[in-house]
């Protein structure tokens, strides 16, 4: 008889630790007067990002005689920004988010995101707050910080902003055994992302958490560009012990630039043979109405639990990961 695996993947001990960590997160934000909010998991629009794929479902009901496509959110960012534009003040959310085609020891297609926004903060101030949260939850040492450019220069000897960066990266990646993963026509971002994942990440954030700041403008996502060096965006990520834990922005508030980025994403999608995605007009309308200057960050909560448990598998932190769902 084949055994039906009904039991949870995570141990009860792991689930208790997970629950304790959730409590600690809520206490952390309660002390700082950050309001807990809930925004829709199902929304009229998804994301245009080239490398993020929304799961969709179809909804019927009044006004929807033909079932209408809704998008399961890859992050609560757009709706939270609409709250900020409605003068919510500082807000945080702990919610399930969904990403298609992401299953690995570090990915479950449905996972828990901790996301928060601080009006009036810069990315630097928000990184300091995230560092405090990390020290509270994981008893880590204070994080270190280096720019994307410095990370590549120190660990690979390549300046990612130099004119010959593409050529040098291609040669280095080929030499390091990644010839099957790349072609000359690949964008600089593809090469940078491969080098970051395979060659830089293993070298950083092993002993203490490490912020990588000032991502290339071509990977700005929803961050504003750096005023002193427009080749860089005020986007940061946090790495610790081989895990990418967080992605944050000093947020872009300009609706015109935001609309242009969405369109540029869709153009890239077409180039790669992917469907362009509907643009979230409600977010653009909120930016038009005026979103306060703010910084925001999204943290993979399950990965924090992985670190606390000392496991290298996200399945150990979730009662019923996708293969048992």
């Amino acid at each position, binding site marked *: 008889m084949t055994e039906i695996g009904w039991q949870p993947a995570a141990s009860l001990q792991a689930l208790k630790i997970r629950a304790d960590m959730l409590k600690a997160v809520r206490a952390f934000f309660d002390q700082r007067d950050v309001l807990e909010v809930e925004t829709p998991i199902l929304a009229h629009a998804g994301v245009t*990002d080239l*490398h*993020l794929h929304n799961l969709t479902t179809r909804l019927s009901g009044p006004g929807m005689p033909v079932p209408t496509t809704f998008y399961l959110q890859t992050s609560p960012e757009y709706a939270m920004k609409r709250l900020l534009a409605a003068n919510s003040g500082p807000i945080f959310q702990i919610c399930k988010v969904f990403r298609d*085609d*992401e*299953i*690995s*020891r570090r*990915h479950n297609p449905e996972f828990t995101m901790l996301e928060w926004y601080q009006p009036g903060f810069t990315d630097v101030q928000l990184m300091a707050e995230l560092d405090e949260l990390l020290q509270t939850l994981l008893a880590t040492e204070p994080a270190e910080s280096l720019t994307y450019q410095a990370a590549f220069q120190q660990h690979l000897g390549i300046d990612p902003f130099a004119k010959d960066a593409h050529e040098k990266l291609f040669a280095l990646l080929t030499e390091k*055994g*990644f010839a*099957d*993963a*790349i072609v000359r026509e690949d964008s600089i*971002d*593809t090469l940078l*992302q*491969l080098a*970051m*994942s*395979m060659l830089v990440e293993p070298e950083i954030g092993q002993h203490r958490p490490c912020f990588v700041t000032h991502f290339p403008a071509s*990977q700005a*996502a929803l961050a504003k560009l750096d005023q002193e060096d427009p080749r860089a965006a005020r986007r940061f*990520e946090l790495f610790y012990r081989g895990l*990418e834990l967080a*992605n944050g922005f000093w947020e872009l508030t300009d609706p015109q630039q935001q609309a242009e980025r969405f369109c540029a994403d869709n153009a890239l999608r077409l180039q790669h043979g992917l469907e362009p995605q509907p643009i979230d007009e409600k977010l653009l309308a909120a930016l038009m109405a005026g979103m306060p200057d703010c910084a925001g960050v999204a943290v*993979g909560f399950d990965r924090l639990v992985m670190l606390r448990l000392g496991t290298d598998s996200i399945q150990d932190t979730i009662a019923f990961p996708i293969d048992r769902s």
Partner: protein
Amino acid sequence: MANYSTNEFKAGLKIMQDGEPCVILENEMVKPGKGQAFNRVRIRKLLSGKVVEKTFKSGDSVEGADVMDMELAYLYSDGEFWHFMNNESFEQLAADEAAVGENVKWLVEQDVCTLTLWNGKPINVQPPNFVELEIVETDPGLKGDTAGTGGKPATLSTGAVVRVPLFVQIGEVIKVDTRSGEYVSRVK
């Protein structure tokens, strides 16, 4: 041969790499939150036996390898080839020295072996986990030693050399684990 996309990758899948059939041992997706996903795989090359790491862009396809395993009984060697027979169809296949390799010392007539075929040609011969072979040479050993402490080398009829307990003598048939090359027991 069909192509396989990275989402079809799993342990055991046979693919072509560097002109050689390979089997995937491990497959892992590596994906930055907002970046391109890659598949990092560990593969064993089936001709050289080498284990190497490869990385592909997720969504890319690679050529499959026409590799299959067959259970065939060992018949005999003519010095150049080792001949095997399918016990059901009585079809015969010959494996060369490169395919038989070191496992030549575990080939026993009538034993059913697993032959790996690439485009119909044997590239590997895997003997059964246990084989029974006669000892043709070993030191007489100590009389009365039955505890089997220490042991001594013994040469088997195929030329294989294994360590056996002191009490085992020339002419006896022993059972050997071909995976470790270790003595298991005497066979009555």
